[in-house]
């Protein structure tokens, strides 16, 4: 089967296209953040002072509260603004990626217009509030 591709100029560039490309790019961004987390964990001593579970904890949310039970002697140098910003960006990309995903699923399986609108609003509010709470927890921990 031969694939057909339409050029960007012919396809037009609207909100849905923007969200489509954003979903792909935020996925790549999350890979990058996980990589930054792994490197950070290795620098802080994951090789000898952490087990696998704690390495994954730091990878997916680089927050000293998340790895409190490790043998890393001093976590204070790791609660810097850099890691808080990295964590906040991670939460933001993950939440917006997830939000667009859930909205797509709703669009695909529900046909009733009112129910659709209602669920879109509910999911939107829940995920925005959760993002705000997550970033708040990050910066106050």
């Amino acid at each position: 089967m031969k694939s057909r591709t339409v050029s960007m100029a012919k396809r037009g560039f609207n909100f849905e296209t923007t969200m489509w490309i954003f979903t792909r790019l935020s996925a790549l961004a999350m890979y990058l953040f996980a990589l930054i987390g792994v490197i950070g964990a290795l620098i802080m001593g994951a090789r000898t002072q952490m087990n696998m579970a704690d390495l994954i904890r730091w990878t997916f949310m680089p927050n000293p509260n998340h790895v409190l039970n490790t043998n890393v002697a001093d976590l204070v140098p790791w609660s810097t603004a850099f890691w808080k910003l990295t964590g906040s960006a991670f939460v933001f990309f993950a939440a917006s990626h997830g939000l667009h995903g859930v909205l797509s699923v709703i669009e695909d399986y529900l046909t009733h217009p009112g129910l659709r609108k209602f669920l879109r609003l509910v999911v939107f509010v829940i995920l925005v509030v959760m993002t705000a709470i997550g970033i708040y927890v990050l910066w106050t921990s």
Partner: protein
Amino acid sequence: MGLKRNVSLKDGLRYQGKGPMLTYILHRISGLSIVLFVALHILAAFLSQQYSSSAGTFINDIYESWIFQIYIIFCGLFHAINGLRIVILDLWPKLIEYQNEAIWIEWLVFLPIYGMAVFVIIRTALAG
């Protein structure tokens, strides 16, 4: 705008799309599971930190159980690897001709990593 569809749910379930369809449906299920898990995880962190609430501990106990861990690592790993395949095929559309091969590679990457993770989880659970 309401959409009219002539396909019932039963026919939808009977649709045999094979490999690509399986990854598509697993991507959806795992994505929704991750959204639910992450939202509850944030909520638990918030409740434990702000109020030292027992509700946070209750949620933590659920996702620290080994059955849940086996499930959520399937979701996370599959979503990540299948997502990478989708990103690569979408950003280089000419590669879509090799979709079936890409899915085979995807499973070849996924199964060993997932098997290893399940092995570690079960070994830890048995050690208590």
